[in-house]
């Protein structure tokens, strides 16, 4: 599954995007673009709108003003199947990782594949493979998410984001629950994804605290942007 986009076309374009929750502004006139196979870090202090930026790219929220284009399609015009296709082409890791505790970790990770129409057994096989790669052993895969450590939950969320082999990976503070060594490992893995053609957009409050790959481009948001 991939976006139809030529190498020269930016994958994500924000054009003077503003977002307000009621009267409270979160983003104001934000413009940037992300090209294919790029590693972009959206940084900024708390309340600068990093998570909101990721949610806007995933069309989980709508901008109050401005336009967002993903793979050449304005998100405002996306409805129904096109919107589903867009979300299935992305892998999203939220902060905190949103995992459903009424089912096992394996079934959580199988969800995106099943939602994309894959038979359940096949989706579970693919989820097990993704979890193995993320370092969760089979006995951990059968537990409820609440029975895992914070770091293991984060890795499970990453496995879920990757299970559909997305073209765009959106990660919100993916290193928040990881120690320094695990953070470095994660950055290495993400860099490999970028090399293989995946675009990574990562929100991070303190980009200097983690060993970002050399190719990473930082977009700094300021609280002033929102005010």
């Amino acid at each position, binding site marked *: 599954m991939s976006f139809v986009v030529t190498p020269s076309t930016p994958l994500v374009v924000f054009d003077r995007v503003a977002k307000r929750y009621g009267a409270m502004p979160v983003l104001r006139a934000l413009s940037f673009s992300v090209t294919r196979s790029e590693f972009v870090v959206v940084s900024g202090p708390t309340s600068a709108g990093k998570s909101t930026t990721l949610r806007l790219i995933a069309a*989980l929220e*709508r901008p109050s003003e401005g336009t967002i284009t993903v793979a050449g399609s304005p998100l405002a015009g996306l409805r129904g199947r096109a919107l589903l296709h867009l979300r299935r082409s992305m892998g999203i890791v939220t902060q905190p990782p949103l995992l459903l505790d009424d089912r096992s970790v394996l079934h959580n990770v199988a969800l995106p594949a099943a939602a*994309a129409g894959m038979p359940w057994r096949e989706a579970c096989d693919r989820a097990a493979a993704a979890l193995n790669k993320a370092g969760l052993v089979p006995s951990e895969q059968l537990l409820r998410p609440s029975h895992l450590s914070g770091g293991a939950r984060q890795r499970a969320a990453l496995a879920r984001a990757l299970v559909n082999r997305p073209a765009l990976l959106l990660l919100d503070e993916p290193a928040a629950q990881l120690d320094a060594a695990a953070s470095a490992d994660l950055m290495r893995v993400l860099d490999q994804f970028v090399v293989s053609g995946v675009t990574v957009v990562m929100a991070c409050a303190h980009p200097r605290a983690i060993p970002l790959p050399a190719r990473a481009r930082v977009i700094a948001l300021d609280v002033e942007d929102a005010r």
Partner: protein
Amino acid sequence: MSAALRRAAALLGSRPWRFLLGMLTAAAAIVLLLTVAVVAAGVAPRIAGLKAGPQLSVFVATETPQSELEALQSRLAALDGAPAVRLIPRARAFAELSARAGVAAGTETRANPLPDVLVAQFGLGVEPAAVERAAAQVRTWRGVDAVQAEVGWYRRLAALAAGAGVVGAVAGAAALLLAAMALPAAAAAQVRLPREEAAVLRMVGASTSFIVRPYACAAALTLALGATLALALLAVALSSAQPQLDSAAAALGSTFAWPRLPVWLPIAVVVMAAVLGWLTGWIVTHRHLRSSDAPQ
């Protein structure tokens, strides 16, 4: 679909008391509906057809030839309300009377003063006025000496039955309304889509039907199992009532058997319950989803 069914079973299993209550509520509502249907279709017509209504006693003139007696019997049987007609021959009546009086038959030299009597027995569904009209008509027939009709008690019974019918109809309608409300409520009680689940499923690109299907399946399973339980309970109740109904019917000179139901009927009841559950589950989950999806 198998994944949705598996998920539905897990949903029901995670809240067993809610599921059990929903299934029992559905079973009670369906038993109520089926009981009303069985009584309306099976019992009421049989009661109406029982030959336990008013009687006409037709005293035949003496010296009436046998052929004319038989003709009278046929004409009585052809009256409105199709009564059952039996003959009490004068000789048998005299013999019984003599035996009761303690006189040995054949020792009495006096002539038999009793007439032949034709008794027309109407069913319970006949109108009292129709019986009176029939009595007046029969009195004019040749060969009929007198007609005796006891309709007063039947008129009072018919008035009571009409009152009971109105009360029964109101109670039946109330029961149907209650059942019609209880079934969707039992199905809807199985549906609770948490906001977090809706958010995660939307985030991973799940379609509305993917999200809704397990809940619709859970609601359909609840009503289908409730309908199966209701059919089993009803079968036990009907077979338990059979001896009492047999003896009541025998006392009225009749027999009673439940109407034979086609094989497809129980299957249709279960399928209809499942479809109702599915639709209710679909609508309720859709509503939850719309509130979760409200634009921000």
